[in-house]
């Protein structure tokens, strides 16, 4: 028996450490630890709830804007504000494009190198690569000359002795199975996707001024003023044309590059349809409705819970059943280890792990900055797989047709979805669905504007004097990595308590007081590891969840803590 440590886990957002027990070349137990803490929720205390989104947006710069959306929804829920339809459409467009862009980046830049050996691309025949490309897609960049150019570029890097970004790779690892031509195809599209992602996300610049961290959310709506006759309106006919061009380009890239690549790569790694299962419970808050987003019946991704891999039943989501435990997390609760609902959330950061430098964490005690969220006391997986499983089980027509199509392609039953490869397939399926819906939201904005419907923000409660003395609310969003919830309590004009329960906390959290493993920990059991110094297999399964650790680590409360906002001696005026 040997202890395997992977730290840092790279190609993820944030600081994640995996410790695992190896037994006969397989993992017999695993521990997932978040090793960085910032305390954003403490920092939010007393601040203006209208600007909470600006702060919480910085929880994450990869899935940037998801915390902004959850935050404005939470505050709007507390203050009982209904946003205009146009604001809902702009939010769908910003969030939907985020999902598409983020998923494509995940596949190529965060996950592909687990399956693709860059150095094998050198052995590929560009002519055969061209044939392969043309056999799976109509994408126009598919000539032998094009692939020769990419191959020469990789050759240049290798010949220079300076591999740059590719320096640390596990090249030649026995778990790589792609033929040289598929490797070359994937490397070419790795580079294409790098260019595509920054071109497409100009959509966020149009509607938010910049990306990462677009700056246009408002409690009550959006700051994207619309006017069919004004050249300086954020949304006008000229901008609509540009938005339409961007979303059409995204759909094309997803349909012609991303989807064919995922299917091609998956075909060589079918054994990963049986590995990396996880906890078998799935949660989706649901999202992407029409109008003001409050009617769950209109959601593109349905709301629901599936338990024990039983897709014959979908349970409703009861917000009261969500709790977080800290029995293995570096926090103290004032009254023991009893899990708490987000509205009653209470946390005091208290690091009790080993002093750095250290070799191992004390995994039998507290070992992570992540808490352990539970639904009805059960660990739940959230994310693309959870959304597709819940949608499939709920009989959502688009989702069912898309999932059945992929299963038919691999001649496999729905149970293969509960796997490492199942997560990758689910992510691709929902990306394609989402890419297909973006244009309808552009069209709806265009139509509203043409008909004189230009309301973009409900400002009836902008003035804090219109607020009740105290209120509380929550806002949910299906972010790229899964179900995201913000809970806020407002007192007077300031935030009294704020908590975010975040997708990666659900997935990457440590054991709870009952000893139940979180999804990452459960998914690694029985994973074979050919070479402990090059734990490629561990990365495959962990990456299939698309970790976002900065999101996952958060803290609430510090009720009663007092401080004053400091002055700025370096900003003297006059």
């Amino acid at each position, binding site marked *: 028996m040997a202890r395997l440590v992977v730290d840092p886990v790279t*190609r993820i957002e944030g600081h994640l450490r995996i410790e695992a027990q190896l037994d006969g070349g397989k993992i017999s137990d695993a521990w997932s630890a978040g*090793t960085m803490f910032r305390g954003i929720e403490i920092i939010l205390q007393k601040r203006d709830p209208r600007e909470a989104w600006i702060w919480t947006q910085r929880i994450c710069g990869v899935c940037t804007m998801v915390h902004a959306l959850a935050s404005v929804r939470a505050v709007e829920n507390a203050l009982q504000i209904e946003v205009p339809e146009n604001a809902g459409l702009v939010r769908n467009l910003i969030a939907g494009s985020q999902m598409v862009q983020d998923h494509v980046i995940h596949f190529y830049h965060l996950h592909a190198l687990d399956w693709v050996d860059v150095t094998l691309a050198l052995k590929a025949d560009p002519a055969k690569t061209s044939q392969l490309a043309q056999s799976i897609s109509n994408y126009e960049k598919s000539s032998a000359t094009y692939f020769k150019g990419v191959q020469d570029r990789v050759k240049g890097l290798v010949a220079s002795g300076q591999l740059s970004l590719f320096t*640390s790779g596990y090249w030649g690892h026995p778990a790589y199975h792609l033929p040289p031509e598929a490797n070359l195809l994937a490397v070419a599209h790795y580079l294409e996707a790098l260019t595509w992602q920054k071109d497409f996300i100009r959509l966020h*610049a*149009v509607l938010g001024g910049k990306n990462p961290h677009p700056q246009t959310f408002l409690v009550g709506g959006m700051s994207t003023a619309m006017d069919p006759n004004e050249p300086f309106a954020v949304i006008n006919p000229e901008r609509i044309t540009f938005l339409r061009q961007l979303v059409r380009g995204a759909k094309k890239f997803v349909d012609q590059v991303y989807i064919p690549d995922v299917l091609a790569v998956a075909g060589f790694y079918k054994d990963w349809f049986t590995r990396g299962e996880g906890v078998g419970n799935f949660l989706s808050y649901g999202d992407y409705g029409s109008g003001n987003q409050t009617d769950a019946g209109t959601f593109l991704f349905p709301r629901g819970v599936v338990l024990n891999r039983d897709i014959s039943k979908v349970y409703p989501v009861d917000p009261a059943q969500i709790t977080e435990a800290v029995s293995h997390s570096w926090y103290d609760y004032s009254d023991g280890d009893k899990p708490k609902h987000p509205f009653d959330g209470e946390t005091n950061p208290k690091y009790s792990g080993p002093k*750095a*430098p250290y070799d191992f964490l004390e995994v039998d005690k507290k070992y992570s900055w992540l808490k352990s969220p539970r639904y009805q006391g059960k660990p739940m997986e959230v994310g693309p797989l959870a959304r597709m499983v819940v949608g499939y089980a709920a009989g959502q027509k688009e989702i069912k047709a898309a999932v059945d199509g992929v299963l038919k392609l691999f001649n496999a039953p729905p149970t293969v979805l509960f796997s490492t490869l199942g997560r990758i397939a689910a992510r691709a399926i929902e990306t394609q669905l989402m890419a297909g819906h973006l244009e309808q939201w552009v069209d709806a904005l265009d139509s509203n504007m043409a008909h004189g419907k230009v309301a973009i923000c409900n400002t009836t409660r902008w003035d804090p004097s219109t607020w009740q003395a105290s209120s509380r609310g929550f806002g949910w969003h299906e972010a790229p990595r899964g179900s995201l919830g913000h809970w806020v309590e407002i007192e007077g004009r300031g935030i009294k308590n704020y908590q975010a329960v975040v997708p990666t906390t659900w997935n990457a959290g440590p054991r709870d007081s009952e000893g139940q493993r979180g999804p990452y920990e459960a998914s690694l059991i029985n994973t074979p590891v050919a070479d402990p110094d090059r734990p490629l297999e561990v990365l495959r399964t962990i990456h299939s969840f698309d970790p976002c650790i900065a999101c996952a680590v958060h803290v609430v409360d510090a009720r009663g803590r007092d401080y*004053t*906002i400091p002055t700025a001696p370096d900003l003297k005026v006059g």
Partner: protein
Amino acid sequence: MLSPELDVSSALARQGITRRQLAKFCGAMLATLALPDRYLAQVVQAVGKAKKPVLVWLQFQDCTGCSESMLRSSNPDVAEAVLDLLSWEYHEVIMPGAGKAANSVLDRVVNEDKGKYLAVVEGAIPTGEGFCNIGGHSAMEIADKVCRNAAATIAVGACAFDGGLVRAAPNPTGALGVQEALPGVKVMNMAGCPHNPANTAAALVHFLTFNDLPALDQYNRPLFAYGRIIHDQCERRAHYDAGRFVVDWGDEGHRKGWCLYKMGCKGPAATFNCPVVGWNDHTSWPIRAGHGCIGCASPRFWDHMSPFYDRIPSVPGFGVEVTAGEIGLGLVGATIAGVTAHGLIKMIKPAPPPPPVRETDGLTVNQEVQQPRKEN
């Protein structure tokens, strides 16, 4: 192991990037850096150097937004070339190897390229124990080892600059920016939330060309990017001068692109070149998207520029009515906090438009940044 004949120009040629395109790219860099044309040959030559300098990118208490921002680097035809200019060997969010494989790269660079490599830092560094450990080592330990042995350190984003959001009151983790966490280390700060990759790319090229950092202000931010007040460069400035203001989100003024001052815009108190270089390949910037500036490139902006929707109180020469006598010539952050204490409502109620600014130089909040300071 290195081939001495290696020439980046021919490597670029293999990627279909011609000498002419390279020169064009370098020309764009000159423009961003505000260098005269006669430097073009020097930039082209530097960019075409044989061995590529090694760069390592460290992430501490961060959100990875600055890494993502770098991926949006905006000269589309040559963005790849920007990466190929350097041997970008350690960067957790995109490097293939994890754990031991990653850590050994960092150790090798520090040992073998000592004094020659560039270190980029993203995120704040906590002084409290256990708040950021990587590979079993503390952020402080890693930063100290890597930055002290680097040719230069570039702090990208607000958190690496001065602790950013992580350091905002009550600073639960004792977070600091790089230059305060590592006294004596040569740091260039690319402030902003996130940093603007157009500026960072330009600063990198400047370093490759002259083997030195560009001229810096007193906060060690390059003057070319941080030396001008946003309000003075703003496309909505004419509306301010004419007294045309947005007073309610979505109102006529908002739809017509009028001045956002009354909605809390911090443009008059902030410096950055957003209005000139824009974001995401010059597509837009926050004020164009209808929202006020939050002053994200300014020192300790999270505490000093918030509440973000409160109107900036009276600044001398800025001609604002509300609380001039009440708050006097205080500090921006302090005055805003004070005004909040005196009554938020007063700030939010519609007020008569301020008269046009008569003395634009009267806004002295950031006048000190005009003084170049090269060394730290």
